[in-house]
């Protein structure tokens, strides 16, 4: 493709991009963008475009060429100062960013399994359920209600464990989910491709149905009613007072304990995300990550190159599961309630569509995917629904075809089309952009490679790998 064949819009875009990435402009641009967005959201907490602008500032921050320290500082300010203040001003936004962080963590975990190791897991949410029910069981009164009929807890039943054991259970949830992943993987990972998808799909349903039915003979899960209340970890009182003193003037009213809990779980989820990213990044650039990818690309060739295929897949399965487990514990505590309905097949598909939308194997892509799907679900679709229902209650008519809005069927409520939307997203992505919004990229090592190549050339004549000779070592 030559330059002059480009359409004017594309060249305009290129020019804008060139201008934006030059010298100090990205710094100024990001700061202005962020300040404008933050002020806009602060002043009109209900404006959805303002909030979207604020969310997108994270995207610009990541992709524009600035120093890493700048990215880090601005990112921390955005995540730990701006978002909480705005979230507390409009508690709905806090729910949005909490869900984005929870689903990002889940999607990053699933990305290890699907994106890196290429194992299509349609029952990922089962591991999430394992973590959630683990804390739900031990962090509630359930252990004293084993012989009670669901819903008939005697008054003053004590809690089994102190609330602070939540922190221990974050790690236990991780371990138990990894163990379940490992045990499931043992028989399952010997099957390939489509079969694996079917088996994991079945497993996901098995866990949900177990949760639904294990209220008898022993009442382990309280059946379809779910377990509640589940304890939240105690927040240190001193910290609460200090935070309240800081937050109250910013927010403009006194902040409740409940809101602090929401903030706390949001930040905890962010911490899990950071851990996941570090783990994934480091494993990706090691023997483990290369083995995952080799198995994904060509299982037979990987085995022939000395990669133990089953062991490699098991590791991916278990690590992916462990992240779902820890998020499950966090979810149970943040909601103080779990029920089988939270872990249905659609949840698995939802997380999977985040991974595919964002880009299989791509960390920033998966986070963007999670953000887009959550925002679509919670804001765009619901916003459209509200707008439609407002129209329905008015006397407005659609011009030309003369159709009265109030005659519009309830069935056309956009919020009901979440599943349709997932389907459309997956179809469109598979047709037009299989690699996702932000495709995964391999690490480049051009400088190092060239250096070694020159080195070899300078040692002229010694071009063959000296230590390759196996005769030398045996």
């Amino acid at each position, binding site marked *: 493709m030559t330059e002059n064949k480009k359409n004017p819009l594309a060249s305009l875009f290129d020019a804008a991009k060139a201008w934006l990435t030059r010298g100090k402009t990205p710094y100024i641009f990001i700061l202005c963008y962020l300040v404008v967005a933050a002020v806009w959201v602060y002043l009109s907490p209900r404006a959805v475009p303002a909030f979207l602008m604020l969310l997108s500032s994270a995207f610009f921050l990541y992709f524009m060429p600035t120093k890493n320290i700048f990215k880090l500082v601005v990112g921390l300010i955005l995540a730990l100062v701006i978002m909480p203040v705005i979230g507390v001003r409009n508690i709905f936004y806090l729910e949005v960013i909490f869900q984005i962080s929870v689903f990002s963590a889940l999607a990053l975990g699933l990305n290890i399994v699907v994106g890196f190791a290429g194992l299509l897991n349609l029952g990922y949410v089962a591991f999430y359920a394992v973590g959630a029910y683990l804390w739900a069981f031990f962090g509630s009164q359930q252990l004293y209600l084993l012989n009670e009929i669901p819903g008939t807890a005697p008054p003053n039943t004590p809690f089994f464990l102190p609330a602070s054991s939540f922190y221990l259970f974050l790690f236990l949830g991780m371990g138990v989910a990894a163990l379940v992943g490992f045990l499931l993987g043992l028989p399952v990972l010997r099957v390939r491709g489509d079969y694996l998808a079917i088996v994991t799909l079945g497993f996901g349903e098995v866990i949900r149905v177990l949760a639904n039915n294990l209220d008898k003979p022993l009442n382990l899960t309280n059946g379809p009613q779910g377990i509640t209340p589940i304890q939240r970890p105690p927040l240190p009182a001193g910290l609460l007072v200090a935070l309240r003193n800081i937050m109250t003037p910013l927010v403009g009213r006194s902040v409740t304990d409940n809101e602090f809990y929401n903030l706390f779980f949001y930040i905890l989820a962010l911490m899990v995300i950071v851990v996941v990213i570090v783990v994934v990044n480091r494993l990706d650039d090691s023997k483990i990550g290369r083995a995952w990818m080799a198995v994904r690309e060509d299982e037979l060739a990987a085995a022939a*190159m000395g990669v133990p295929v089953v062991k490699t897949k098991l590791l991916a399965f278990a690590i992916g599961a462990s992240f779902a487990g820890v998020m499950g514990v966090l979810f149970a505590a943040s909601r103080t309630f779990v029920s089988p309905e939270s872990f249905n097949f659609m949840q698995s598909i939802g997380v999977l569509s985040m991974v595919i939308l964002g880009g299989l194997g791509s960390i920033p892509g998966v986070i963007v995917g999670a953000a887009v799907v959550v925002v679509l679900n919670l804001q765009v679709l619901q916003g459209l629904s509200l707008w439609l229902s407002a129209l329905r209650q008015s006397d407005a008519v659609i011009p030309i075809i003369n159709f009265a809005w109030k005659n519009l069927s309830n069935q056309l409520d956009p919020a009901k089309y979440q599943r349709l939307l997932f389907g459309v997203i997956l179809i469109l992505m598979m047709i037009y952009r299989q690699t996702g919004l932000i495709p995964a990229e391999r690490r480049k090592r051009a400088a190092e490679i060239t250096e070694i190549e020159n080195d070899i050339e300078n040692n002229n004549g010694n071009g063959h790998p000296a230590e390759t000779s196996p005769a030398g070592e045996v």
Partner: protein
Amino acid sequence: MTLLDVKGLTKRFGGLTAVDRIDFDIDEGCMYSIIGPNGSGKTTFFNSLTGIYKPEEGEVHFNGHSLIGLRPDQVTSLNVARTFQNIRLFGSMTVLENIIVGMHHHLAQNTFTALLRTKTFKDEEEASRRRAVELMSFVGLRGVGDELAQNLPYGGQRRVEIARALASKPKLLLLDEPTAGMNPQETVDAIALFRRIRDELGITIILIEHDMKVVMQISERISVMDYGKKIAEGLPAEIRADSRVIEAYLGRGAAAEMNH
């Protein structure tokens, strides 16, 4: 000294006996070729050696170890490496990464050292990258370390596959039709490369090949397979003159005509 000792190896698929009681006795440092018409069981023989197929009968001893019942990765860790008839690279990994995957069982790192980024881990990674580049230069690749393997031209991909196999430090290298699809110049280069692998690295090579010119030029010993059986074995000159071989390749009538 015998490096690979195969006795009575048999592999059946349902009623079809793809490899039928085959014996091989391959010396260390040999350049050995297996030829035969399409479907004569050559690739099945390779797959049975390397653990991809489980043979029904027979024994395989390599360098003092039995290879029967081992998984492919276990066979590789005993220093047997192979390439595939249709190139099987890890397409969306870089050339460098492809080659480093070949070193998998030589790397001492594990999940924990990788997570903690210990010094030994970093040193090992650096050394493996260095060795990968050395192997690239050995097979004649330069400046493509960062390319995705799938973006390389055909000849380049063949070289990467050989470098990847060499990365596992094999004593025995199994090459399955390595010059298939190459133009004459590429074939000449490939032959030179195989010789260097044998002479400079001391690696024993077994080659499945269709191109008679290549086979006759390079091999020290040749076996001929037909319908899963080994029908002849000997020096290139002997094989060229063997009537059974001509028959297998050209059919009985043509063979008879040639004798006239």
